[in-house]
């Protein structure tokens, strides 16, 4: 079993009004010095071992990159990063 984490963020040039709202709320709460907040999504994906399941690709990171490019992120407006967590 592998755990892969996919982070999806709006591209830097895309306005993130949610992040701005969070930044304003932090300011109201008295957290000084916050110059920017951007909000994204995190997916934690459990993938069965390739050895045990027919059809599962041997490289969980490559599989997760396929998932991200096809479904988890809209690459028109979002970037993603993939990492395999140590268990």
């Amino acid at each position, binding site marked *: 079993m592998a755990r892969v984490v996919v982070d999806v963020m*709006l591209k830097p040039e*895309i*306005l993130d*009004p*949610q992040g701005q*709202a969070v930044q304003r709320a932090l300011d109201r709460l008295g957290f000084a010095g916050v110059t920017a907040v951007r909000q994204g999504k995190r997916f934690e994906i459990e993938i069965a071992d390739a050895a045990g399941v027919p059809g599962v690709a041997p490289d969980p990171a490559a599989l997760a990159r396929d998932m991200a490019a096809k*479904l*988890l992120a*809209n690459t*028109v*407006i979002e970037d993603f990063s993939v990492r395999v967590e140590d268990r």
Partner: protein
Amino acid sequence: MTRIGVVTFPGSLDDRDAARAVRLAGGEPVRLWHRDTDLAGVAAVILPGGFSYGDYLRCGAIARFSPVMDSVIAAARRGTPVLGICNGFQILCETHLLPGALARNNHLHFVCRDQRLRIESSGTAWTAGYRPGQEIVIPLKNGEGRYVADPDTLVRLEGDGLVVARYLGVNPNGSVADIAGIANPAGNVVGLMPHPEHAVDTLTGPGTDGLAFFTSVVRQLVEA
């Protein structure tokens, strides 16, 4: 009679209004279900507004991979007229039949109001019944209606006359270049954020300015 499919996804809201608009335009609405793989021989398809699959992940992202969409995408590529309204526009962008994407409104509020628009192009299957430059009022209701596209795409959309409608007055959601709707180069696929199907009858809408989206396609299909 011209048969026009209206797709219902789990969470669609405006499928009945879209079907009614088709009927008032002289067409025969055909209900399609998101699990259908066969389009029942319809001559055009409408993807209605709503919150397909709860808008989980991103608006339209999961609907894009529903069984019916493989058939809709194939039909669109063959030239079948397809209109995506609101959530349907979001789905069409997720399929990449239309460029760009719809992001959260710049002010974060859900907007619901009668919206003034200028029809910029009558060169599509869905707007042939309007005059270019014609001003219309139809309802707008969205939380994620801010059209975004990269600069090259915008140059292409503007240069090729693919902007179908633009917001007049206050830009309701921060859409780039006040864009309310766009078309593909062939003009058979149109995505529109405001709701023409809610403006087909003075009893229930602000007027009948939206009806020509539906009469345009019915007329074109009858003449074809």
